[in-house]
């Protein structure tokens, strides 16, 4: 789980162009959207791409993804359960 969280932070930084942010800066349990990293609806769509690209998970829309995308931790938990 810890390894997955670390890897996920790397992917988020790379794919969402979070320059000047290091994995240590991201609190695994803090909300990803609005405050903190200031992610928005385009980032949510990019996270859907990350899930498919690295973990083979398909999500059809960002609405159903809301609770899953709450934090890095909730994302990692979802990946653990659903990865292919």
């Amino acid at each position: 789980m810890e390894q997955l969280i670390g890897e996920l932070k790397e992917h988020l930084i790379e794919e969402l162009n979070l320059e000047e942010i290091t994995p240590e800066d991201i609190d695994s349990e803090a909300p990803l959207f609005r405050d903190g990293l200031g992610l928005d609806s385009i980032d949510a769509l990019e996270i859907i791409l990350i899930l498919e690209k690295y973990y083979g998970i398909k999500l059809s829309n960002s609405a159903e993804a809301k609770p899953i995308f709450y934090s890095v931790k909730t994302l990692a938990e979802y990946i653990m359960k659903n990865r292919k």
Partner: protein
Amino acid sequence: MVGKTEVNIYIGTTSIYTCLGNKFETLAAMNRGRGGLSFNKQFSMFTGSLEVEMMETYTRFESLMIDQLIEVLSRTNIKLSDPSVQLIISTTKGNVELLEEDVDHPSERTFLYTSAELVAARFSASNPPIVISNACISGVSSFVVARELLLSGRFKHAVVVGCDVLSGFITSGFASFKSVSEKPCRPYDAQRDGLSLGEACGAVVLTTDISRAVSPYIRLAGGAITNDANHISAPSRTGDGLFYAIRSAMAEAGLSADDIGFVNSHGTATRYNDEMESKALALSGLNTKPLNSLKGYIGHTLGASGVVETVLAIEQLRQGYIVGTYGFKESDLPHPIAISSGKQKITKACCVKTASGFGGCNAAIVLEGSDSAKLTAENHNILPQKVNVVAKYTLPQSDMAFADYIRAEFKQLGESNLKFYKMSDMSKALYIAVERLLAIEGFSEIEPTRRAIILANRSASIDSDIAHQQIVSQRLPEGPSPAVFVYTLANVSAGEMCIRHKIQGDNTFFIENRDSGLAEDYARLLIARDRADAVICGWCEYLKGKWNVDLKLLKKIFD
């Protein structure tokens, strides 16, 4: 510019070509409640696609425009070779499909202006064409710009043509936004799940000479462009940007909600667009007016939509009843609006036409029929406003690679804005230039709806187009990146500035061959006619590591 101008702008000849056919075929199908969307195997989605008879040496996009221009110009004495006639072209992506052939070396024809010049030359146009690429509001924007140019007295007539064709570039981009419906789109319906794309072309002759107008007369009585200053792709949650556009267009027309017979909205059938519109219409007091969206019949035809749907709005005004909203059964909108589900008689011969698009932009125009209260000469009894150039800034050239250069510039600003790094390179260059410009003199004293940004460049967004096409050509299983696709519209860079500096007034992006001063000229018109108090204007070019950003800040001189 004189203090008092008495000018009316009338609709002349019009023509469209949609997936339902020519103007009368399209109108007849709509009157019978028949839609034109069908499943497109190439793009794996429902689209409104055209069969195009190609013309020798012209592309599909250019052939369509030439066809429609021949159609409107053959039925009027107005000629593009006359210096008092201006051609205005509205498109989002022009010949972008040519990028598929050699993505690393975009051919000359992928530049919108090259294409525009070829079309203008076909008709021996006297004036260089004006090209407007303002995302999905381009068509409605073109009428607003045409109106300003005609009121200024520079031209007597304008010919507006709007066109976009579909390609994998466009369809995969919208798919990456998860905004495409799995079925033919259903505007405003509770079951709506996204838009359907379409391709179309339309042309309209506008004239200030009533003897050239087509009877029954319809006036282009008002128009306005605004920005949400909220998000580059998500519709506003308040609807205030679109409300401001409607309010300003109606004020121009001197009309109130009581005078309006119907609203022809954008109505894309995405969850959030339709919701946003319902809020804006409630704010405008138009929520009880019959309303329709035509997207269910012909799809969202992008840069053509504002022109094609305006032509159809004109025909609905003339026939005295409106068509239903194809695909709509039952609404679940937060603010009830009077969505027309079938044919409906209208009692007032005025229409408000709206559009909203990426970059946070909104546009509205008012069409006024001949049996409405006043069809006397429009009386612009305002004192011409004087303009001051209060700041100038040119982004310096550097020997450094762009990425290093712009990062160093951003660091110098000494702020942390995580959004900066997500922007396209053109937006980053503009971001820095605007920060420096406003450091010379700001506009904090100006009310947001009185701030505007008017830009022009040559390449539109070809730098981002290349990045998107490279991803599309890889055919990745997860599909292209929405964060890249969103910047394949030049005006989105202007939209970034609107968010950053709370600019809620006009935001228009022109495409030219070289900086002719058009952006500044238009900015001056906006201030002279008292439509803005401060305008950032100028040239904003970025392509393959080379940049040229040259800006001015104009302000109205307050007495």
